[in-house]
C-alpha cells in the first residue's frame, strides 16, 4: 500500500454494460442464449454477410426504457442509432450498432451507501443501447485465437455514471445496487463472472480537498464486483506513487490482472481509436411515445429501494431486516406474498430471514426452489399467535417437518408431532394444582412474594405437560390459583 494515499481523494466514474435477457438478439432473429454450442446462433445477419441488414428488436427498447424509468431517467422520444467503427476479429460487420448523440435515457440516480453506511445518490449520465461483439477465445487452442459469434449481436445497455464515487466501497455499493436493480427488473441476469454484467472504471486522484480532477485512467477486464474494488485500490496507490515521485498521470486505458490485482497499460490516448460515429443509415430513427412509456411504467415490478422504505417506515422493521429482505428480488417477492397473508410483519421477517434463508443456504437452493408456499409460513405464525404451538416447536420441529412434507398443513403436523400446546384451562389448572401440591414449601414461598420461583414452577409445569403448556395461559392460571 502506498504511503501517500492518505494525501489524495479518488474520483471514480463507472461504465456498466448489461446484457439484456431478450429472447432474440438486438438486430436479428437469432436466439440470445448463454452457453450454446459455439457458432450455432449465427444467421447471415449475425455473420455480417454481404447484403444483410439489421432489424431492431422492440424488446430491447422496452428493456432499456424499464431500466431508465427505474433510475428516474428521462426517456428520449426521438432518437437514432449510430455506428461505431473499428476492426476486430470478433466484430463481423466492422462496426457496432450503438447510440451516440441520442441515448435512450439521460439522467437518473442510483442510491448507494457510503462507507459509514449513510446514503448517497450517484447521478447517471446516460443509458444507451448497443450490440455485443462476438467472443475471442485465446485459451482454447494452443496456436490460434478462436472466435465464437453466438454473442455477436446480443443486446446490451451501457449505463454511464457521473464521476461521483469517492471510494472503492462506493463503487462496490453502486455495482451491487445496479446488479440488484437489473435483476429486479428482470432485464439481465447480473452475472459478472459469465460477463452478462461488465464494468469499466474511470479512476483519477486529486489532492485531498481539491476540486480539480486529475487525469483519469480507464481500467477494463474486471470480472467481479470485488475485482473492481481491487482495481480501484491498486490505481489509487499507483497514481499516488507516480505523482509523489514527480511524475504525471496520462490518460490511458489499462487492463486489470486478476491474479495479482494490478493494472497494466493497454493503450495511450494517442493510440485511442477514432470510432467515426455516424447515424446508422440502415435503421430508421426510433420514435417512443408517452403512451408506450406509461405502459411500461405501469408494468414495473416493485423496486428494492421502494420496498426498503416501505419495510422500515410502514412495517417498522429494522434497516438490517429490510436490507436482507430486499437483497434479492425472489426473497422480497416471497416476503411480499407472506405479508399478504399475515400482518405480523416482524414475525414474518424473522421467519424469512432465519428459517427460510438458512434452509436455502443449507440446501444451496434458490427461493423459487423452496417447497413451502408463503401461506404455510403464515399458518405457522398464526398458530403461534393463537398459542396453539410454541415458537420453539414451530421453528425447531414443525418447520423442518413441513419442508419434508410440504403438502401437509402446519396444524396437522403439529397434531401428528403432538406439539399442540395445552391451553385448555381445566387441564392446565389440574396440572398447576398438582405441581403446587407436590411442592408445598415452594408454593408457600411463592405466595409470600418470591417472584423468582415462577421460573421453577414453569419448568415443573412444562415437564408435567410434556412441553405443551402454553406459557401465557399457564401464567394466568398460576396467578389465579395463588389468590
Amino acid at each position, binding site marked *: 500500500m502506498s504511503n501517500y494515499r492518505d494525501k489524495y481523494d479518488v474520483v471514480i466514474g463507472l461504465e456498466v454494460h448489461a446484457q439484456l435477457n431478450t429472447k432474440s438478439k438486438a438486430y436479428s432473429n437469432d436466439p440470445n442464449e448463454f452457453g450454446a454450442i459455439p457458432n450455432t446462433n449465427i444467421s447471415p445477419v449475425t455473420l455480417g454477410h454481404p447484403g444483410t441488414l439489421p432489424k431492431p428488436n422492440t424488446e430491447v427498447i422496452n428493456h432499456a426504457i424499464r431500466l431508465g424509468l427505474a433510475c428516474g431517467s428521462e426517456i428520449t422520444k426521438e432518437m437514432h442509432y449510430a455506428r461505431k467503427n473499428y476492426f476486430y476479429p470478433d466484430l463481423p460487420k466492422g462496426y457496432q450498432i450503438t447510440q451516440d448523440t441520442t441515448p435512450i435515457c439521460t439522467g437518473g440516480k442510483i442510491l448507494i451507501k457510503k462507507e459509514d453506511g449513510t446514503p448517497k445518490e450517484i447521478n447517471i449520465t446516460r443509458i444507451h443501447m448497443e450490440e455485443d461483439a462476438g467472443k475471442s477465445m485465446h485459451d482454447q487452442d494452443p496456436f490460434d485465437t478462436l472466435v465464437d459469434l453466438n454473442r455477436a449481436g446480443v443486446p446490451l445497455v451501457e449505463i454511464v455514471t457521473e464521476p461521483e464515487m469517492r471510494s472503492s466501497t462506493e463503487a462496490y455499493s453502486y455495482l451491487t445496487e445496479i446488479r440488484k436493480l437489473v435483476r429486479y427488473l428482470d432485464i439481465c441476469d447480473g452475472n459478472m463472472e459469465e460477463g452478462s454484467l461488465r464494468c469499466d472504471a474511470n479512476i483519477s486522484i486529486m489532492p485531498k480537498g481539491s476540486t480539480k480532477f486529475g487525469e483519469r485512467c480507464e481500467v477494463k477486464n474486471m470480472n467481479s464486483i470485488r475485482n473492481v474494488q481491487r482495481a480501484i485500490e491498486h490505481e489509487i496507490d499507483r497514481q499516488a506513487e507516480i505523482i509523489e515521485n514527480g511524475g504525471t498521470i496520462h490518460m490511458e486505458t489499462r487492463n486489470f490482472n486478476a491474479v495479482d490485482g494490478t493494472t497494466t497499460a493497454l493503450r495511450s490516448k494517442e493510440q485511442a481509436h477514432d470510432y467515426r460515429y455516424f447515424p446508422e*443509415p440502415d435503421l430508421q430513427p426510433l420514435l417512443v411515445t408517452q403512451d408506450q412509456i406509461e405502459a411500461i411504467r405501469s408494468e414495473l415490478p416493485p423496486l428494492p429501494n421502494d420496498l426498503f422504505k416501505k419495510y422500515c417506515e410502514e412495517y417498522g422493521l429494522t434497516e438490517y431486516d429490510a436490507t436482507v429482505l430486499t437483497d434479492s428480488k425472489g426473497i422480497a417477492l416471497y416476503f411480499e406474498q407472506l405479508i399478504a397473508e399475515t400482518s405480523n410483519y416482524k414475525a414474518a421477517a424473522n421467519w424469512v430471514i432465519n428459517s427460510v434463508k438458512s434452509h436455502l443456504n443449507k440446501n444451496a437452493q434458490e427461493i423459487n426452489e423452496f417447497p413451502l408456499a408463503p401461506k404455510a409460513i403464515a399458518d405457522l405464525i398464526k398458530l403461534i399467535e393463537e398459542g396453539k404451538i410454541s415458537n420453539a416447536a414451530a421453528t425447531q420441529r414443525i418447520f423442518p417437518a413441513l419442508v419434508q412434507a410440504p403438502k401437509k398443513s402446519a396444524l396437522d403436523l403439529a397434531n401428528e408431532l403432538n406439539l399442540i400446546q395445552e391451553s385448555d384451562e381445566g387441564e392446565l389448572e389440574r396440572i398447576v394444582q398438582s405441581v403446587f401440591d407436590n411442592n408445598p414449601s415452594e408454593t408457600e414461598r411463592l405466595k409470600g412474594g418470591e417472584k423468582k420461583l415462577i421460573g421453577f414452577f414453569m419448568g415443573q409445569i412444562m415437564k408435567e405437560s410434556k412441553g405443551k403448556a402454553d406459557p401465557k395461559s399457564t401464567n394466568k392460571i398460576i396467578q389465579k390459583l395463588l389468590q
Partner: protein
Amino acid sequence: MFKSYSELNKALSQKETTCVEVVNAYIQEIDKRKSLNAFLEVFAESALKTAESVDAKIANGTAGKLAGFVISLKDNICFKGHKVSASSKILEGFESIYNATVVERLLAEDAIIIGRLNCDEFAMGSSNENSSLGYVRNPIQEDKVPGGSSGGSAAAVAAGLCLAALGSDTGGSIRQPASFCGTVGLKPTYGRVSRYGLLAYASSFDQIGPLTNNVEDAALLLEVMAGKDHMDSTSSSREVANYSKPEESGKKRKIAYIKETIDSDGVDPEVRASVLKSIEQLRADGHEVEAISFPYLDYMVPTYYVLTTAEASSNLSRYDGVHFGYRSESAKDVESTYVASRSEGFGPEVQRRIMLGTFVLSAGYYDAYYTKGQKVRRIITEKTEEIFSRYDFILTPTTPATAFGLGENIDDPITMYLQDIFTVQANLYGGPAISLPMGNHSNGLPFGIQLMASKFEESKLLSFSKELMS
C-alpha cells in the same frame, strides 16, 4: 429474341415455345456475345432446372405472373447457392447462403434467373471499368463503355442476352448505363424495394431497380419486387400500386425542366437539341412544360460523394479477410490480415472512396464534411419537393453526352464523377427516376431522357413514361 415479356408470355401460353427452349436460346446468345464481358457467370444448370419446373406449372395452369421471364442479376445481389462478388477480388469465390428479398419475390412469381452480370466494383463507377473482372463493352459500339456501375446489366439487356436485368442505383448506376446502351432504366423511390441482399455501397442512397427493353416490363418487375420487407427496416409499408396496369393514363401533366441542365456547356449539342425537341413535342401534346432554375446543381455531386463515401467506408469494413472472402497470402497476424487483404482485395477506386469516407467521418473533420453534407442534402430534398408541389415531373437529359470510349476517362476521376451530375438528385432526395431511350445521336449511339417524380409516385411516372414511349 423476344423484346417484351408480353411477347414471350404469349408465345409460352400459345405453346409456341417452352421456358427450357427460351433459356437455351439465351445461353446461346450469351455465348455469342462473350466479347462484351457482360456475364460473369451463367447459371445454366439452375436456370434450366427452374425452366423445367415453370414449364410444368404453365402446363397445369399454376404459373406465376413472371412465368419464364428470363432475368439476370447485377453481381451485387444475393442468390442463394450462387457466387456473388460485386466484381471485386475481395469476394473471390464467395457464395451467398441466402436469397435477396427481390430474388425471393421474382422466383415466387416463376421468373428464371440466368446469371450474374459484371459491374463496377461495389457499384462504384460510371463506366464499368472499375471491375476486377475486366471491363464491359457497349454492345452498340464495342469500343465504347456501357456506362456504370450497372454496365453489365445495361449491356446484357441491350444485346438481348436476357429479357431484363436488375441493377442498383446509388447516384445513377441504373439510369446512366441505360442511357448509354439504349434501354429503359428505373430507379424506384428509396424504400420502395427491399435492399436486403443487396451488397451495400451507400445505404441511404442504394436502390435496386430493373433495366428493360420497355416501360411495361419495368413496371411489371417493380410491381413484383416492391413492398414492405421485414428484413429491411428502411423499406416502406406503403401499398404497392398495380404499376403494370396504369389507371391514370392520358392525363395532361405539368413538367419542369431545369434550365441549368440544358444550358450547361458540358451538355452535348445534339443531346440538348433532342431534349428541347422533346419539350416541344410535350407542349404540342397539351402538356405544360416550364423552365425552372435550380441553383444547387453544383452542390449535388460533392454532397453525394461526401455522404456516399462516408457510408461506404463503414459498409465495406466487413471485408476484412477474417470471416469470408479474400485473405492475403501474406497475412501473418490480425493487423497484416486486414491491411494486406484489403490492399490486395479492393481496387483503386474502392480504396479511394474508402479513404475519402474515412476522412470525412474522422474526428475533427466530421462537422466540416459529413454534417455539412447532410445539411445540403436536406436543403436539396426540400427544394426538390417544392418543385414537385407545383409540377408532376422534372425532365433532364440522363447524361450530358453519349457513351465515351473505353479508357478515355479512366485517369480522371473528376470527369468520371460528373457523369452523375443529372442523376444524383433523385438519390439525394430519394424519389423515383427513369431513363427513357429517346435519343439517337449522329455518332450512332443512343442516349436517354430522364424523368423524376415525387417520392412514391412510381405509378404516375410509369404511366407517363409509357405514353411518351408509345
